[in-house]
């Protein structure tokens, strides 16, 4: 057996699937872990941003002279400090970004396009002085009419955000500009023929509000630009290589001259995949010659960092009386915020993905509005479109009196299903999650009077991509694992388990580190639920590389061919009696002999991970509606999801629980409230209320494992799918409780009360 074929799983695992304490755990329970804002450098300045008070305004002039004259102010930057960049689309997270827009989002140029849009920034000896300086900057604005709503923004007479924006994806191209950046379409079969086969057709319009990722750690960074043109950047990010690329582009630097270190990250959920402060801090540091630290306030996080897109979705589904879905159609209108690039495309692709359908058509519109540019938020685009479709599926089931899980089982996508967006699914676990739901105690438990139960399924693609990893063998046989994907929820634990499994050594002997951008090759960011999968694959590859070297070394020591050595349970052994009689050489033995036998051992991998397995989930929720206050209480919640293989089951459960509770917030409470001038009225956690501990019950989880054949241990990404089903599951449960179908989110107490009043439901339950 060739040495490099070792380390494959045979189905039973020693480490993968166990629940050790995470390697970074103690630092995080003692306050020792260093997050974005936890670092101070000698001679450091504090940077602050001046932001537009207007939702839409032309910037006639900016006068910074008084600010610069204030003692303690070291420098000021404005649009004049950043070169304009041409229109060019590059991947960032699960979206594409355009540098023409990135440079404008970081610092407004011609116009301020949303309240909170950066207009200038100062670096000063203290935060106090920096704040005083901001008040001295004079900006001459010409206030323009603004537009916040996606449908209003599409109207022919709407205020134009970008006077040169011509809708892409329309043939022939329009001759006049509009706020519609792009139109996309996905179809399979012939929806008209499909609807003709249907006995029942339901169509409805839905709306969702923008919601913020709500990470508890605000954006923060420290830039240290040296006189020789090199710079270091410390920041909280989901992808420091992506930050390096964006900053180098905006600052006109070689990427090799910018070393970016990812701090511990206090939540991201997609929102820390883009740059806001980082290029500004670098520019302030370049101009001042001193390190500059910048941290957003919570208000700035809400005003100026990316929410998930607010949407209008029209959807239509046809079904036979026997429960066979014959066709699905949808039109999606997604807010992009101030610059194009909403996740409407993945929204289109995911809308009907849970179903095996012959006829599907989905059209999506990417629309700019005077709000902060949207950023990825956990399965970007999917929750909004699947909310619409999963609500109609529930209504169809109720119409024919069929169990909603049964209806989904009858139509579920499975291995071999051709998805409307193109690919044919390999092994996927939707049917398994539905079977688990049907069999679950929760699904059969009796409800109290007035309560309702709802079910919904959800889908997310998951991604792979460029990934590097290194394993450095120490002289005592312990290992330093270096990965390039910031650990946002326990991935270091998962990577160590996969390395331990492959090498056959105790997981405690492996210490992980997220390397900076100079220690590893380009590694795409933590997003798309790719880290346990793609960095996992890279770590397994690196372990196999090390095993190959270890076997070759043992062969050299024993003076036998490398092919005659195999790696079993963490040691090199002669492969069978023909190879000769030798005492096995353990990892520690070989590490100790390294210097004398040929040099150190470093296992490396640089891969472009392919074959990320999609993940399906099914959620069951029971709600109770208070008919006097309109409050919807989550009484019981169960998440069932396919993880492929749960490497560290506790952290898989954590993803399922956390995603579900974010979905509960999206469904019931979270929304941005603007005044008539386009100013955000609730930029804080008091008025933008995310779920708190007393709002939710325990979140039960069931992990289904349908292995992903492309990963050595069968791993699929799990982080994003859990936020997809909750909105529809809860709307379906509220409908079961009240007989009222909510199509607009959030189902907050005022809206529920209004709907109860409109339906003339007696107040006393």
């Amino acid at each position: 057996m060739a040495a490099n074929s070792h380390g494959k799983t045979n189905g039973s695992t020693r480490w993968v699937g166990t629940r050790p304490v995470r390697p970074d755990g103690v630092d995080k329970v003692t306050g020792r872990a260093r997050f974005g804002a936890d670092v101070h450098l000698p001679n450091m300045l504090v940077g602050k941003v001046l932001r537009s008070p207007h939702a839409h305004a032309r910037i006639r002039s900016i006068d910074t002279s008084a600010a610069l004259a204030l003692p303690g102010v070291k420098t000021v930057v404005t649009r004049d400090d950043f070169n304009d960049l041409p229109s060019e689309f590059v991947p960032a997270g699960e979206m594409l970004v355009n540098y023409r827009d990135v440079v404008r989002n970081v610092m407004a140029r011609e116009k301020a396009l949303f309240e909170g849009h950066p207009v200038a920034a100062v670096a000063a000896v203290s935060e106090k002085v920096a704040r005083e300086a901001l008040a001295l900057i004079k900006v001459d604005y010409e206030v323009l009419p603004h537009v916040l709503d996606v449908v209003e923004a599409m109207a022919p007479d709407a205020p134009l955000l970008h006077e040169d924006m011509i809708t892409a994806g329309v043939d022939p191209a329009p001759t006049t500009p509009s706020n519609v950046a792009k139109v996309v379409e996905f179809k399979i079969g012939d929806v008209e023929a499909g609807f003709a086969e249907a006995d029942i057709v339901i169509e409805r319009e839905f709306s969702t509000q923008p919601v913020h990722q709500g990470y508890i750690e605000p954006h923060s960074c420290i830039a240290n630009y040296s006189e020789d043109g090199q710079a270091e950047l410390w920041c909280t990010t989901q992808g420091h290589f992506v930050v390096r690329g964006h900053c180098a582009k905006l600052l006109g630097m070689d990427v090799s001259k910018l070393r970016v270190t990812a701090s511990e990250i206090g939540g991201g959920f997609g929102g820390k995949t883009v740059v806001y402060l980082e290029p500004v801090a670098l520019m302030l540091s370049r101009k001042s010659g001193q390190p500059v630290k910048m941290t957003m306030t919570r208000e700035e996080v809400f005003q100026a960092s990316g929410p998930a897109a607010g949407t209008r979705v029209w959807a239509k589904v046809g079904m036979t009386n026997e429960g066979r879905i014959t066709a699905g159609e949808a039109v999606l209108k997604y807010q992009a915020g101030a610059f194009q690039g909403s996740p409407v495309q993945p929204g289109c692709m995911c809308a009907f993905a849970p179903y095996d359908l012959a006829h599907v058509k989905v059209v999506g519109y990417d629309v700019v509005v005077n709000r902060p540019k949207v950023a990825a938020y956990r399965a970007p685009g999917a929750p909004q479109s699947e909310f619409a479709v999963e609500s109609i599926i529930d209504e169809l089931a109720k119409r024919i009196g069929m169990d909603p899980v049964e209806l989904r089982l009858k139509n579920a996508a499975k291995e071999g299903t051709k998805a409307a967006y193109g690919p044919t699914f390999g092994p996927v676990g939707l049917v398994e999650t539905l079977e688990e739901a049907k069999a679950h105690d929760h699904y059969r438990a009796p409800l109290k009077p007035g309560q309702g139960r709802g079910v919904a399924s959800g889908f997310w693609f998951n991604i792979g991509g460029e990934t590097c990893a290194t394993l450095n063998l120490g002289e005592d046989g312990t290992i330093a694992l270096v990965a390039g994907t910031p650990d946002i929820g326990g991935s270091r634990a998962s990577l160590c388990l996969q390395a331990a499994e492959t090498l056959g050594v105790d997981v405690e002997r492996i210490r992980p580190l997220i390397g900076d951008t100079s220690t590893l090759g380009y590694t795409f960011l933590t997003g798309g639920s790719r880290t346990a999968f793609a960095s996992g694959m890279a770590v397994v590859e690196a372990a196999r590389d090390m095993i190959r070297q270890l076997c070759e070394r043992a062969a050299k020591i024993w003076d036998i061919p490398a092919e005659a050595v195999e790696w079993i349970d963490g040691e090199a052994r002669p492969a069978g009696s023909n190879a000769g009689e030798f005492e096995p050489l353990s990892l520690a033995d070989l590490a100790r002999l390294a210097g004398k036998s040929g040099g150190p051992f470093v296992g490396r991998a640089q891969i472009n991970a392919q074959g990320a397995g999609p993940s399906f989930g099914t959620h069951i929720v029971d709600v109770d509606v208070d008919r006097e206050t309109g409050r919807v209480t989550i009484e019981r919640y169960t998440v069932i999801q396919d993880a492929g293989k749960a490497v560290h089951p506790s952290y898989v459960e954590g993803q399922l629980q956390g995603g579900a509770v974010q979905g509960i917030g999206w469904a019931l409470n979270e929304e941005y409230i603007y005044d008539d001038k386009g100013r955000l009225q609730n930029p804080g956690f008091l008025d933008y209320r995310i779920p708190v501990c007393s709002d939710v019950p325990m979140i039960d989880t069931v992990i289904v494992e349908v292995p992903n054949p492309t990963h050595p241990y069968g791993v699929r990404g799990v982080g994003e799918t859990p936020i997809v089903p909750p909105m529809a599951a809860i709307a379906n449960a509220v409908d079961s409780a009240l007989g009222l179908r909510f199509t607009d989110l959030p189902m907050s107490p005022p809206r529920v009360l209004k709907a109860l009043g409109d339906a003339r439901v007696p107040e006393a339950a």
Partner: protein
Amino acid sequence: MAKAHVTTTVNGDTVEFLCDAEQTLLDVLRDELYLTGSKEGCASGDCGACSVIVDGRLVCACLMLGVEAEGLAIETIEGMADGDQLHPLQTKFLEHAALQCGVCTPGFLVAAKSLLERNPDPTEIEVRYWLAGNLCRCTGYDKIVRAVLDTAEEMRGG
């Protein structure tokens, strides 16, 4: 304006610092004393990431001025472990995987410690309401609540 001179006790040690009148206790802990375990998530008392114990009372360090700390005893996350012995809550949070990103964790631990000092046998509902001032966006609270209940049980039995 000249800075104020403040003498206080932090995690049992006498500490002196100078601070501006408008600096919060959290600013002082983080930026003057470099005790960065207490986090700033909101600066408005809504997220609880800066939870500390002041003279036995659980408070948000962002809602108290540094000058108000004169003569008081402050306990932060940095003082929670006893030397190299983790507090049982810290151990249980690790065992239960009650953290993901970990930025809210110091605040939850300090708040939970304060709860167990008052109520060694809390119900799930009592834990949930006591911790309702601490926001966590990663975990959905499930494993946090379990870790606190398990710690309480262990400390009662211990």
